[in-house]
């Protein structure tokens, strides 16, 4: 299981399809990796079963992060990654539950995932439901409707991870609608709330596994396009697709970073 390969696949899919949102997908890759590697019990054996943990990627535009993660964990045939966002493809730009097993909810319109997750958590109290959403996405009022009810119902198997990269459609989230106080907001709504470095795998793992007596929110501070120097914190990578040269540079930066770690 290689996180570097997941990120390479995200980049490659954005490259050949000319699709947008590569920065958003890279931003969420570490979070999804830790969820599938350490927290959610989802295996090739139980993938088609309703009786298992669930993962909802509410920021559906980061779909390539989920597709690549599923493929890396043997939950999706790797060759499907070659059929994203193209004529006759299998994997759409935004998530379609009916496209492949392992997509637990369709997504692409923001602010649905937490409510869906609440319903799933209530339906199967024995299983955990992980919802990954963006920080810009918390501007949707429905997020707070779900947040209030999840706390009122003391739902113990719902875990929200906010991929807080501080960039959205038109600029920085702190310029458009400052949400620097997300921790305080979720706490005030009655959630067990933890700040995190969204690229610190060990910290994410510990927080995801921490026992909970009610709904849990991890506010994961992330970097859009993390680990790729020309992409980091750049709004244009919400839209642009990397060309051949940019792809090569990204690969070599990811390889160098991995080498540095294993030394």
């Amino acid at each position, binding site marked *: 299981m290689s996180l570097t390969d997941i990120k390479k696949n995200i980049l490659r899919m954005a490259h050949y*399809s000319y*699709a947008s949102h590569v920065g958003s997908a890279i931003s969420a890759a570490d979070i999804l990796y830790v969820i599938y590697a350490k927290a959610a019990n989802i295996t090739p054996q139980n993938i088609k079963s309703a009786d298992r943990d669930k993962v909802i990627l509410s920021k*559906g535009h980061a779909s390539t992060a989920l597709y690549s993660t599923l493929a890396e964990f043997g939950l999706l045939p790797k060759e499907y990654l070659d*059929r994203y*966002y*193209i*004529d*006759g*493809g*299998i*994997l*759409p*730009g*935004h*998530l*379609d539950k*009916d*496209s492949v097993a392992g997509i637990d909810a*369709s*997504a*692409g*319109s*923001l*602010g649905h995932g937490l409510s869906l997750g609440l319903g799933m958590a209530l339906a199967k109290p024995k299983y955990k439901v992980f919802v990954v959403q963006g920080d*810009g*996405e918390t*501007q*949707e*009022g429905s997020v707070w409707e779900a947040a209030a009810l999840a706390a009122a119902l003391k739902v113990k198997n719902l875990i929200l991870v906010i991929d807080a990269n501080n960039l*959205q*459609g*038109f*600029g920085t989230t702190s310029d*458009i*609608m400052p949400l620097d106080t997300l921790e305080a907001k979720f706490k005030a709504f009655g959630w067990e709330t933890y700040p995190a470095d969204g690229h610190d795998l060990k910290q994410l793992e510990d927080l995801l596994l921490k026992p909970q007596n009610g709904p849990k929110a991890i506010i994961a501070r992330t970097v859009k396009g993390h680990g790729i120097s020309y992409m980091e914190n750049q*709004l244009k990578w*919400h*839209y642009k697709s990397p060309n051949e040269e940019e792809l090569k540079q990204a690969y070599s930066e990811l390889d160098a970073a991995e080498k540095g770690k294993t030394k």
Partner: protein
Amino acid sequence: MRNTFLKTLVEEARKNKDIFLITPDLGYAVLEPFAQEFPERFINAGIAEQNSISMAAGLALNGKIPYVYSIIPFAVSRPYEQIKVDCAYMNTNVRIVGVGAGLSYGPAGATHHALDDLAIMRTLPNMTVFAPGSLNETEDIVRYSVSHKGPVYMRLAKRGEPRFNYKTQAGKFSTVIEGTDFAIIATSNMLEDAYNTALQYQKEGKSPLLLSAHTLKPFDKEKILSLIRKGMPVITVEEHNIIGGLASAVSEVIAPSGLAAKFLPVAVNDVFSHIIGSRKYIQEHLGLANLKKKIDKFLVSL
């Protein structure tokens, strides 16, 4: 078309200081000219569509003319009840501008497709519904919309639409090609497809009439009745569900008229697209491609 919309709105905003532009954080690389020239009249409301619409209604209730711009599902479906109560019921001068008609967003997937917007906007009392198919229509409709009383929905395509040189009159179909054999009525982003089909018929020596239904509400009933009375076969073409859009509007005129009509509706047959591909690719799978073949078959059957 979205750039033509914005350019025209900027021209109007120079003349009319009540015009506002609001976006729930969409329209990057489109809306900037307005935002730069009129920063005090541009509001990025964040990713929050319901608040955007109701806030726009509040502005309108106090004399402003707000345009709310987003991708169609997020402009129309997400805040539908706010539109119903705050725009339609209170009859406020809110202009809802949705980009990405029909399958324009192709491989992005069904969350971004717009196959229901004409239906749900048409059912709202007081709502005027526009669906321009060309750049000249877009300009005329944007200019018209500024002084219109009551709420307006404007369905925009995306980019690359044709430009014709006729003037557009709100509420009346535009004649794009004169003809006498049969009538093709197209709306929104299917106007170009229908235009190319009509040209093919002209090459065969036939005389198709091509009308653009850029206004779905109020609907040009008189024109439909006059075609039916002449015994002209009528074909409607839309990238929308067959329920509630152009085909429905035409049927609503024909059925109570008591006239016998020859009518072929070309539309999406009440399905979501789970097909992945470009707009053209999905069209082939949803029965919107090969218009000429469909129309040929219909005309032969008469």
